[in-house]
């Protein structure tokens, strides 16, 4: 079977600091996967390296068994919040429409149909009422929904989302998770950087535990163990007590 994401011995260094070392994992198709690890573990770096946004020192990355090229348009990406210019003269709908740019191609304008798709995506995240708002005039959770809608508009097969739940209220988090499950049911694969250990078991079929190296990867119930968390998070005791409760919770 074809694996959507296949990473072998990936090493990435910024200047003289190795941020990822020999990271190896594969991801099965049609699953919701959590990428979990402490701050600075290299989660964002991993996504960027897989997408080819930063150079890798060594290793191999395959998307559906091929070297990834952006023009294949099978990967959607929701960057960590704050990477955009919120004062940019653009509306919510316009942002979602940008998700279509990869499909539109050089020299052409987005078509009526692209516009239609963008509107539908905005509806899916419950933001149709805000289509013409300038994006700085939306709340944090609303902005996150708009960026999710933009990813939907990309109509990809594999999605990478970097901390989509940060700064989002419980209702929005629920709405986002429902949407991710819908994507999953359409056979898409979604990788999500996630911080809240309490919900890992609820949300994700598979997990990748990461701290510079791969600690473990595979089905959540096998991988999300006390011992692995210990390795991932090091000696943060109070934190781990909490972790214990969560592991035993189910």
């Amino acid at each position, binding site marked *: 079977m074809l694996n959507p994401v296949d990473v072998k011995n990936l090493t990435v260094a910024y200047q003289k600091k190795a941020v990822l070392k020999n990271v190896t994992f594969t991801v099965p198709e049609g699953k919701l996967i959590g990428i979990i690890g402490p701050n600075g573990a290299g989660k964002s770096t991993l996504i960027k390296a897989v997408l080819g946004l930063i150079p890798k020192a060594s290793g191999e990355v395959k998307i559906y068994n091929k070297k990834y090229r952006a023009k294949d348009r099978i990967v959607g990406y929701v960057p960590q919040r704050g*990477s955009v210019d919120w004062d940019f*003269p653009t509306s919510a709908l316009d942002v979602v429409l*940008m998700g279509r740019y990869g499909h539109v191609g050089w020299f052409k304008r987005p078509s009526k149909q692209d516009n239609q798709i963008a509107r539908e995506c905005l509806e899916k995240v419950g933001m149709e009422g805000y289509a013409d708002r300038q994006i700085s005039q939306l709340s944090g959770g609303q902005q996150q929904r708009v960026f999710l809608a*933009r990813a939907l508009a990309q109509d990809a097969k594999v999605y990478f989302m970097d901390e989509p739940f940060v700064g989002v209220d419980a209702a929005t988090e629920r709405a986002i998770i429902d949407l991710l499950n819908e994507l999953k049911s359409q056979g898409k694969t979604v990788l999500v950087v996630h911080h809240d250990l309490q919900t890992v078991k609820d949300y994700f079929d598979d997990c990748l535990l990461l701290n510079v190296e791969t600690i473990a990867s595979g089905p959540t119930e096998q991988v999300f163990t006390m011992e692995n968390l210990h390795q991932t998070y090091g000696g943060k005791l109070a934190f781990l007590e909490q972790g214990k409760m969560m592991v035993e919770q189910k």
Partner: protein
Amino acid sequence: MSYEAWILIIGSMAGITCGVVGCFLILRKLSMLADAISHTVLLGIVLAFLISQSMNGLYMLIGAAAVGLLTAVFVQLLHSSGIQEDASIGVVFTFLFAIGVILITIFADNVHLDVDHALMGEIAFVPFDLVQIGFLPPLPKAFLMLASVLIINLVIIVLFYKEFKITSFDPQMAAAIGIPVLLIHYLLMGMVSITTVASFDSVGAILVVAMLIAPGASAYLLTNKLSVMLLLSAVFGVIAAVVGYYAASYIDASISGCMAMMNGIIFLLVFLFSPSKGILSKRLPQKKLHEQIGK
């Protein structure tokens, strides 16, 4: 065509082309890099002259575009070696500009270019500097250069509108969907360079910065749509050029200086009175609110 009409046409064309290019500079936070390039093209022009021994506009465009891009590359190099961006810009442009000034003074006898002219431009003489191409009537050189650059810029912006837009708004996303972000960056820098050179004769190296940045900054405060911002910026550029010219003839002072001042005045008006983002309109609702609470 009359002398005055030529100046107005040439000034307006500079206003449009600078205004449109400037919007992207503002949105990409590259204003200072444009300022730097507008200084360093002086070196490009001097070098083009020293190498080709002629004042041919084409050589100048090439020389300026080359040094302009070189400026952008040097800044990028210093920045990626760990120097903060504003300082990288400061080091690079002052150095290249200093070299340009030194070359001009050393070769002062054979360079038909004096520094004051380069800095302040002399739009007043532009209508007299005619060239003839094919069977067209003789046209001012500055007009031909600005017209070509305006067309080039507009074509590039129309063709790559959405690429410019997304690389300005969200460069990470742009890279992820396979848009060559760096290429777009240098394309913009190239546009800035040729725009500067073409406007150089008329408005001079430093005042071209006012024409690049001020109209876009005013437009930025008036709209939430990129296409409207571009349009408004071009309109402001034209207004500043036209009113600036009449103001200059009225007070008998530097035309390009007056155009820059007009740009400043337009910005000031927008800054005060913009319906959504002006400082007065921001004050008003608060005042109303206070009054209501007071009741």
